[in-house]
């Protein structure tokens, strides 16, 4: 981890710092970002991860107790020689994740121990979700969350009242942001790969509504062009998603709200929520501003991007 860090009392773009080649790239990838943002995001992400064990990827015990003949391990499980899941294994795994999440969310661990705990938690949760995906149904709603769990420990100690900006925080948040954008943008590419360029004119959404639509979802089946319009809109939104990385301010927040509305829509029409991805969209927001009133001097943090 980053053991050698320097602190400067210089805001980004300080003219006193002479420009060097690659400085623009460094500012983009390692944009000094309020450490308090990571501290708050960390609480949300680790808290969510505990809930995920019980409400989202909650079939791991059922798989461990069920037929081993139906286990179709992912490549990562084969490479790492992870066992065919059994009751005791997943029981221990769940406790490792819960305790790890609580310790990491508290932010109270010494730096090295905090990094180690975070990485163990990330590995355990990756193991947990990979069990859920090892019975022939692979989802990609957890990609950004797993990225988040692997990168958040690298930021080191950061507290809610921490007003420093840190390059390590900027990099970790960028990784989570790219993880989110990858899910959307690559979903659009996958539609071209598997469905072809005419994917939006097909009946894939009708397939989803017919199989698992709610009352509201089934109402959208007729006339059929309604869902075709939806398919064009979703594919367009997914292709445009990399803009999230470049937009700032209201345009960025507006895009995040649009994505949240999309996920709310899929939940209301077919009970698919993608919450593990939605929670990672918080990485696009200046979360520390909600802490503004809690600073000891009573002033807003006023940190802006």
């Amino acid at each position: 981890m980053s053991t050698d860090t320097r602190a400067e009392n210089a805001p980004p773009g300080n003219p006193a710092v002479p420009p060097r080649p690659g400085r623009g790239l460094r500012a983009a990838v390692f944009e000094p970002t309020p450490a308090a943002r990571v501290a708050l995001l960390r609480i949300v992400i680790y808290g969510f991860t505990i809930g995920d064990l019980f409400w989202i990827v909650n079939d791991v015990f059922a798989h461990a107790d069920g037929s081993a003949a139906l286990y179709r391990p992912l490549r990562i499980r084969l490479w790492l020689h992870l066992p065919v899941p059994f009751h005791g294994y997943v029981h221990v795994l769940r406790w490792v994740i819960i305790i790890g999440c609580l310790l990491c969310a508290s932010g109270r661990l010494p730096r090295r121990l905090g990094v180690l705990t975070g990485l163990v938690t990330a590995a355990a949760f990756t193991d947990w979700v990979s069990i859920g995906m090892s019975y022939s149904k692979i989802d990609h709603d957890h990609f950004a969350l797993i990225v988040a769990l692997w990168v958040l420990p690298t930021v080191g100690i950061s507290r809610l009242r921490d007003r420093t900006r840190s390059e390590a925080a900027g990099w970790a948040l960028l990784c989570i942001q790219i993880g989110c954008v990858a899910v959307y943008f690559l979903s659009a590419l996958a539609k071209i790969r598997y469905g072809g360029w005419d994917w939006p004119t097909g009946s894939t959404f009708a397939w989803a509504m017919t199989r698992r639509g709610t009352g509201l979802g089934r109402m959208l089946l007729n006339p059929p062009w309604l869902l075709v319009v939806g398919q064009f809109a979703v594919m367009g939104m997914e292709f445009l998603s990399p803009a999230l990385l470049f937009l700032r301010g209201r345009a960025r927040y507006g895009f995040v709200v649009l994505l949240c509305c999309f996920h709310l829509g899929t939940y209301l029409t077919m009970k698919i929520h993608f919450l593990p991805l939605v929670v990672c969209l918080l990485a696009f927001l200046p979360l520390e501003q909600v802490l503004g009133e809690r600073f000891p001097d009573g002033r807003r943090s006023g940190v802006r991007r």
Partner: protein
Amino acid sequence: MRPIAPPSPQFSGGGGSDPLPADPEPPAVQRLSRASLAWRAAALVIGTLLVVRGTLIGNDIDWPFGPMSQFAFRIGPNGAIHSTFLEARTVQGNVMVVPITVKSVGIARAEIEGQQPRLIRDPALLGDLATSYHRLHPDQPQLQQLWLQDRVTVLRHGRDAGQYVTTLVGWPLNEAGQVNESGQVNESGQVNEAGQVNEAGQ
């Protein structure tokens, strides 16, 4: 990674309507060492390449770096929508629909559909579902015979033009019907009373 220079308590950072005087000391910036920059940059590039590769040429088993392929297939407007369900005869002779859910048989419908070719090749796996059902519902009558059914919704110009049900495979096989050359169980009246073809449309 504590900052060498602690943050100043006077910091305001240019907060919008803050009436206090200009900030005398901006927030400290914690920089990374060259080595820290290097490994982070490398990790970001490698991770991004892996996930892009997954969608371009990868396979589902490459998860978490597999293709983002949920809902990526295309159903033509005159295609068919397949939806699998499970029917069973209990030891008491009742025929019923058994939900394919984690709570019911320990595995979800999409997972059964992902393993459908295996189940058709090896119907004894349906016996494993019966075992799971009994483990999860010890006070219910055991399942003696199971059929994996496919409800097919036929589309015409994107509209539901009718449904029918066909039996994909039964277990125990000798009571479920004969297996044809393609490995599918013939739809015959003997397969099961509830599994007849209901041609609601054309």
